[in-house]
């Protein structure tokens, strides 16, 4: 089974984790000012790159903390994990 490294607990089996979608999607500064289309883009539209993708993950069966990871969508290989609030690290995919 694939191991995913929790930034706190270290490597754990992937079944201990839950996926949380694309990372670094900022909440709109003034949601009420958005048009319906802009709001729909915020709520529903996500990137779907082939290659390195920054994602949110939760160590749900362990420390229950959210963190971010850069994963290669072609190989499922985790290129980096980092704590919330930290900038996306530069990684070569």
């Amino acid at each position, binding site marked *: 089974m694939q191991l995913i490294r929790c930034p*706190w607990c270290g490597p*754990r*089996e992937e*079944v201990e984790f839950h996926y949380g979608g694309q990372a670094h999607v900022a909440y709109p500064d003034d949601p009420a000012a958005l048009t319906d289309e802009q709001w729909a883009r915020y709520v529903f539209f996500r990137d779907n790159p082939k290659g390195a993708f920054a994602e949110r993950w939760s160590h749900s*069966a*362990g*420390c*229950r*903390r959210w963190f971010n990871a850069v994963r290669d969508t072609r190989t499922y290989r985790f290129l980096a994990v980092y704590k919330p609030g930290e900038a996306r690290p530069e990684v070569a995919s």
Partner: protein
Amino acid sequence: MADTLHRSPVLRHREDAFARLPEGLEIVAEPDVALADLRVPEGAVASATGVVGVALPLEPNTWVARPGGQVVWLGPDEWLVSDADERPEALEAALRAAVAPHDGAAVDVSAQRTAVRLRGRHARALLATGCALDLHPSVFGAGRSAQTTLGLVGVVLLALDDRGEDYRILVRPSFAGYLADWLLDAAVEFEPPGPAAAL
């Protein structure tokens, strides 16, 4: 208080089976104790030291002894504090009074988990049949802990010695029966060769 402590009925119900475990394995349903979930922001962890009696462990996946119990690291700002001598509401109130001024919180979670003690020279091998962590004492010796899965159930696993022969397993009471049955089933392979004894 000791006179209010009781043991999980689903575990007590299986004590005859525990008594028939093969040599080198021992399972004991431990008395329930007061448990509090403690949240303290990173900059204020020292505010809990007075009530807890020891500094909160900051290293992930560790536990430390405290007067009357243990403090288990559950997250970067979260700990599980146990106390066998204190009433749950008193433990909660004392912790809350210490950390609330620092945006911390304490909640009585005594009913959330019950404890199973697993001992014996086969204890580590038994756990390894249902837990993916490296449990070798060189990396999971006394003072180490882990929130992980054992069999299909989420547990908090505490290593109590450096020989891989003494563990405390904290499990949700509603899963305690499943966990006990799983442990009993996993123990079968440690029966001595020869006609199998009925468990």
